[in-house]
């Protein structure tokens, strides 16, 4: 960071802007995972769907600009976001379909989707390493400030606001709509859902596909805004940490946003300290989000009782 005359204030500012920036993919993936887990299934493959979404979003945005330049710059990225979600949803459908087979373990399938999704995204994305794509627009909230770092910190992407808006919407949807109730029923007790005449597997199929869609949108943020390009080092466990984050947020969509902000801030800690010259041990600072996730899981889990808010069918082996 160039010398901006704000000195040590740069650290909280960098953490603030980093928290907003880094939390966006976390918000989407954790909301998607909340939806899937509320239906009683864990999708550990969100890491793979995230990468797939990042690749698809970047690819579509790039191709729209190349073949349809008149609208490509403006609409291309948004088209990319939607396609990212759809590509990820396909992986979600594969996950749900495999899990619906008897005696298939959802955690193992999640690991499989992680490997498959990453491999497929790297394969299809090989030609995309290098080209540029039109990026998602950001909103400038910092026009009032004369300080460039403040303005940069307040340049916030649209997707962040969309994610923050989706969270209460999803909470309301769970609580107040028929479909929300069905998803919760399937997640709490498959017997009750069956007795009511709902197909457990198809409800979970929709929930997993929709959850993967959101994760894909989160992935497109990585390739279409920050860092803003496609390469094979784009993901760093966000999809997996989101699964832990959902446990921390107690399967509550609104808590997910706060948890995502916390994780995003932890991720920004290393670079923020480096910007003021603390570079000793920066690898350890970079590991902060992982250590934080682990500590939070240790603190919030329990061997002896079920977690409050946990869907009843979660983690049960399918017969």
């Amino acid at each position, binding site marked *: 960071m160039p010398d901006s005359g704000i000195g040590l204030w740069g650290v909280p500012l960098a953490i603030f802007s980093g928290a907003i920036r880094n939390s966006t993919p976390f918000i989407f993936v954790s909301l998607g995972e909340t939806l899937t887990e509320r239906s009683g299934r864990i999708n550990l493959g969100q890491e793979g769907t995230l990468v797939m979404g990042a690749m698809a979003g970047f690819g579509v945005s790039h191709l729209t600009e190349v073949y349809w330049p008149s609208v490509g710059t403006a609409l291309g990225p948004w088209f990319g976001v939607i396609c990212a979600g759809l590509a990820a949803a396909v992986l979600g459908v594969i996950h749900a379909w495999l899990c619906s087979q008897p005696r298939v*373990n959802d955690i193992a399938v999640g690991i*499989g989707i992680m490997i498959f999704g990453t491999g497929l995204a790297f394969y299809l994305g090989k030609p995309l390493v290098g080209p540029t794509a039109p990026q998602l627009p950001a909103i400038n909230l910092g026009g009032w400030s004369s300080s460039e770092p403040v303005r940069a910190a307040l340049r916030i992407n649209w997707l962040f606001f969309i994610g923050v808006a989706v969270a209460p919407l999803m909470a309301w949807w769970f609580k107040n709509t028929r479909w929300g109730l069905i998803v919760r029923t399937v997640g709490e007790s498959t017997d009750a859902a069956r007795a009511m005449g709902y197909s457990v597997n198809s409800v979970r199929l929709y929930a997993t596909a929709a959850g993967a869609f959101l994760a894909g949108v989160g992935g497109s943020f990585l390739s279409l805004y920050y860092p803003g390009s496609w390469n094979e080092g784009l993901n760093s466990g966000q999809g997996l940490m989101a699964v832990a984050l959902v446990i921390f947020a107690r399967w509550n969509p609104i808590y997910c946003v706060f948890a995502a902000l916390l994780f995003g801030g932890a991720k920004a800690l290393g670079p923020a300290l480096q910007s003021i010259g603390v570079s000793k041990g920066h690898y350890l600072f970079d590991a902060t989000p992982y250590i934080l996730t*682990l500590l939070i899981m240790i603190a919030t889990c329990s061997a002896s009782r079920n977690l409050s808010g946990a869907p009843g069918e979660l983690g049960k082996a399918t017969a």
Partner: protein
Amino acid sequence: MSELNATRPTLAFRTKRLIPASFIDAMIISFVALVISLALFGLFVMFSGVNPLDVYYWMGRGAFGNSYAWRNTMIHAAPLLLTALCVAVPARVGMMIIGGEGCVLLGGLFAALAAHMLPNAPPLIVQIAMVVVGMTAGGVWIGIAGALRQFRGVNETISSLLMNYIALAILNHCVEGPMHDPTSLNHPSSWPIGAANMFGNIPGTEIHVGLLFGIIACVLCSILMDHSSVGLATRVVGGNVRAARVAGISVAKYSLMACFIGGAAAALTGVVEVAAVHGHANDSLAAGYGYAGILVAFVARQNPLAIIPVAILLGGVGGSGDLLQMQVHLNSASVQVFQGILFLVILGLDTWAGRLHEIRNIWALRIISKYASGGYKKRPALGAANA
């Protein structure tokens, strides 16, 4: 162990044969999975405009075509044998550990540390110290994930994967900080372990001893898991935690033991990489062996003995990636796509696995299953203990 002996006749897990039935099952299912995956992968490359037959040809040739290919395959297979154990052994107690990558890194790091601590010792002592210290580090590392699961109910899959990232941070921190060798300018590395302390090749070959370690480890784990009372106890724990408690088996003890063995095996990969390949620890240890081992373990259906052929086969596929790139212009990620397809197919076949005895009457399988008919009983699905 008297209480164990008392319960033994009622538990259907006891195997009567030297080659356990689960091995035969694993081999049949892996073979079917491989054929299906190759077909799906063929379809996939067809969409990329490549003739699948060419792909199969170069895959086979790159893996087992000549002595150079065989050597390459074996070198690729060696780490997979050990990292697959890191998944397969904890799976016996119902834990799904995917932290092998972190163990590889820490194993290598601690091996370098051990060598540095013994500057004037004879090579054999240093080598033994590297193996012991490295393996202990890895064992404790996965042991932590196991303990968190046992005592805090933390999902071991997530925690072990998070710990991979933490292990990488520790490795990078050490090789650039406290253990930095000032002469390694371009590629920050730890102090060298010294040429005299390097492991050699297997006599008469150009393959390092890692392969031998891997095969020995798989056979030892197979004996431990399928032919000992410890193995029986771990299976009971993996099958039904409450039944194990009723039978007086300490769930925590056997779970942690399985985690320790798995972690130690994966860490041995790191020790071998440092002591037989690189000569010092650095981030080239993070070559994805831990992740590739997950696939091997699942394809081998968590059977230690089945890991050996599966690792060689998948090592061959991994080794043929370069050739595929050169000959048919498939990009280097195509091997990952194949691995992903294979993983999903093998999981899809899980649903089929428990019913294998129903289709044993198919004549083609009768010959193989003749050997398996004695010990086979329906086994609990992996992860059933998590419920």
